């Protein structure tokens, strides 16, 4: 990575991947899902319901371009697969109505549920999605159908955006904040504010008062965990439990949520940010099969 001019601590890593085991030319249904979130955009290509390729990118200034960029990136390195070969594409997420290659838009709650069912298996009953600017607690059945959900978009606390603000404030890379927050001898009191703007002021105060950065981070991660725990309690937590979204990669928050719940989250097999796009691609497959009949 040659990107070192101006330090951007909040920058998380973009990624892309192609399955080495699948030959798309042998597939019957090639479906795609594009999840345009406020912070990140994912595109997933599936061959007969198996994950074939994906790209995970930062969302740009407008939804259509962000969707197209992620989609093109997912198609790179796929042995000649092009947009024309994709039978059906579903858009989801915050920018779902602005996905140019999608035939249909589906709400992110349903896509996340379906995606989590695929990514973590049919035993998952409770999904906590910690995304860029909102946070959802979803209860699902063994088929990935939603039974109960609650979305918090009241403020940025508990979201990726909130974490980005913090990593910038403390000048620590977003990829390290979780680990760093674990390096405290004793767990501090959570920051009291749930609103990220106040939490920022509070953190600045704590730093001035001489708190080391890791302790401030611990207090913030703990506050975030407490906040999402409230959402989870409202829908009711049933085993197995899984966390999706960008914050699922943050051990500082994940381990504190696990502690509050007294329950371990299932270990992720895929990039945790993919759930929405995977669900969208699965719906796309179903919709294509329906029109083909």
């Amino acid at each position, binding site marked *: 990575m040659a990107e070192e001019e101006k330090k951007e601590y909040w920058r998380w890593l973009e990624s892309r991947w192609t399955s080495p085991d699948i030959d798309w030319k042998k597939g019957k249904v090639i479906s795609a899902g594009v999840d345009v979130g406020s912070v990140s955009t994912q595109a997933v290509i599936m061959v007969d319901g198996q994950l074939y390729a994906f790209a995970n990118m930062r969302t740009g200034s407008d939804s259509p371009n962000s969707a197209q960029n992620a989609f093109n990136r997912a198609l790179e390195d796929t042995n000649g697969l092009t947009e024309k070969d994709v039978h059906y594409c579903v858009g989801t997420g915050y920018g779902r109505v602005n996905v140019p290659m999608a035939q249909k838009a*589906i*709400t992110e*709650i*349903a*896509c996340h*549920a379906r995606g989590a069912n695929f990514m973590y298996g049919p035993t998952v009953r409770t999904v906590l999605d910690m995304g860029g600017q909102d946070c959802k607690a979803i209860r699902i059945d063994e088929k990935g*159908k*939603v*039974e*109960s*959900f*609650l*979305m*918090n*978009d*009241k403020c940025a606390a508990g979201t990726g955006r909130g974490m980005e603000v913090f990593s910038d404030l403390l000048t620590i890379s977003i990829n390290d904040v979780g680990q760093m927050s674990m390096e405290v001898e004793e767990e501090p009191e959570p920051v009291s504010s749930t609103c990220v703007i106040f939490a920022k002021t509070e953190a600045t105060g704590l730093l001035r008062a001489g708190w080391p950065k890791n302790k401030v981070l611990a207090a913030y991660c703990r506050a975030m965990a407490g906040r999402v725990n*409230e959402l989870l309690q*409202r*829908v009711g937590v049933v085993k197995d439990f899984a966390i999706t979204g960008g914050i699922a990669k943050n051990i500082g928050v994940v381990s504190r949520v696990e502690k509050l719940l007294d329950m371990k989250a299932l270990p992720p097999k895929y990039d945790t940010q993919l759930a929405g796009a995977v669900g969208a691609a699965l*719906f796309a497959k179903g*919709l294509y099969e329906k029109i083909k009949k």
Partner: protein
Amino acid sequence: MLANYGYKDGSGDYFITIDTDKCNGCEKCVEACPQTVYEMGEDDSDPLREDPVARVTGEQRKKLKYTCAPCKPYLNSLSGEKTEETMKEIEKLPCVSACELKAITHSW
């Protein structure tokens, strides 16, 4: 599916829950609510369902405590706890009583 809308703050829980399996889209809640808390929209749990269901508007989700306050004078005398008395008052709310299928519940 139970769609929960609302939030919790330092003073309590403020959630409206709509059971979309019960909701038949009759729109009576939309008409009954003086504060336009409800709207009709797609069912978040079942994207392939054609008929719209009731939901709480995006704007109102963030301020239910205040929006619903005029409908809930009982909060002055009863605590927000879900006692039998509170439950009775909740049943009399314009939105809750308008819904014949009992698809709407309030947490406070």
